[in-house]
């Protein structure tokens, strides 16, 4: 199957490792949290404050704040905007992200 990386003939530098809730996943240089999680087959990384429902990317451009996630202990980061660095620790965010 053709992939977006093939379509754009991208030749990124070597992948590096980050973690999602302690589990290692691969990320490409400058890839956003959302892109790396999508590439790892993960589409939700937040439980809502009220009903604890799963959420992930919605608008993809930083407007909707649905993709909030905890990165390196900082909650409420927009996964669609924040680029990853080697060793970053992504954590699923429950509710406001301030009480765990």
């Amino acid at each position: 199957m053709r992939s977006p990386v093939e379509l754009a003939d991208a030749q990124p530098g070597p992948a590096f490792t980050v973690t999602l809730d302690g589990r290692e996943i691969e990320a490409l240089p400058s890839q956003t949290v959302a892109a790396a999680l999508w590439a790892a087959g993960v589409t939700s990384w937040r439980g809502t404050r009220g009903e604890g429902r799963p959420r992930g990317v919605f608008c993809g451009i930083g407007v909707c704040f649905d993709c909030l996630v905890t990165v390196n202990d900082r909650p409420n980061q927009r996964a669609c905007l924040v680029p990853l660095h080697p060793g970053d620790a992504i954590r699923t965010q429950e509710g406001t992200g301030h009480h765990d």
Partner: protein
Amino acid sequence: MTDPNDPNHAAVLPHLAVIGAGPAGLAATVAAASRGVRVTLLDSAAQEGGQFYRQPAAELRARRPQALHHEWRTWERLRNGLRTHVDAGAVRHLTDHHVWLVERGSEGFTVHALLGPEQEEPVEVRADAVLLATGGYEKVLPFPGWTLPGVVTAGGAQAMLKGALAVSGRTAVVAGTGPLLLPVATGLAAAGVEVAALVESADPKAFAGRTGALAAQPGKLAEGAGYAARLLRHRVKVLARHTVVEAHGTERLEAVTVAALDGDGRVRHGRERRIACDTLAVGHGMLPHTDLAGTLGCRLDGLAVYVDEEQRTDVPGVWAAGETTGIGGSALSLAEGHIAGRSAAARLRGTEPDPRAWAAAAKVRDRLRAFFAALDSVYAPPAHWTEQVTDDTVVCRCEEVTGGAVRQAVAELGAGDLRTVKLLTRAGMGWCQGRVCAPAVAGLAGCELTPSRRPFARPVPLGVLARAGEPESD
């Protein structure tokens, strides 16, 4: 590097701050910088391009980014124009600057931004005039299941594809209404996603009655024909006069149910079909970003910033161009940006601009505005879309306010406008400040969608707010 806030440097040339580096902002920057004005271009992204020309992150080293794009030659011209002026020192391009407020003072303007991606460190840029090219964002109307992971906006799917070379699954349905759905469907298909259906609520017959304005744009019709050919090549099934009535799944999207619409825009029951998919890219049109203009006191015309023939707002020293002045696509944004940049440059240098100098751009602008007004009357969500919003459908995604709660506020508590619904239900009070749910709440409340007054265009840390405007201590 020269400091743009250095009074010695500032005294040399008038200084224009352009906010937004999409087609309108880039065209304006190049036009103004070519005409004796110093420009600071601020944008929240890491690279110029905006949404339409969003580029893959540089480190992904895409050797064929044009495969993700349309109008690539126009982009190369814009990008090269920007680089030439940056190299010559006429333009300073500030990337990763999230502008949250533009303040008008007695001695010009102060642009307040937060440095991204953390958005905690403040930056202030002073300028003699401001040009707002803040673009737009997508409108999505709710339906049961639309909060499931895997349901993304059509523009979001495209942004993730263009910027991050990422897709959220293997099988997608593209749905809603509007010209954006075509490039999203063909883009996903070209990137290897199986596009199971393109579900468009508009009636193709409606185009026939508006041939005047549409036929006046042969280029646009050819563009449409090009998409049709690509859809055929990728074997994308097009379901016109259909709508998605429900997204199914528990932890993520597994399927959607689509239904045909009758002549009145109501769902024909008994004619639904279920399509398995892991991605639904959905959109119902675009809305202008007008927060910065609103706080500056610029008059809005409906949902868009009012501008005159020169792209001036009614606030002296403030110009606006592109989708913030009304949705109309990249070619219209380029024409408006060009006119705005020329007008701003002339007036900042104390001369009266001659509109004959930009007659060609003005002609394009008039034609495209007429074209998009005609399109707007064709591409419309189903007339009775609110009937699909069940009482337990979440309408405000941030505060998890349901359709039932909004209806109760309207029917039992007498709410008749967005603000009252917000005060009674919290719909529109969350992180996104009602940007996503406002059209839905307006539809359910039966009131007009009016622009919200948001003093700040994005969340600002309290510490930054407390120190904003203080003299710098260095």
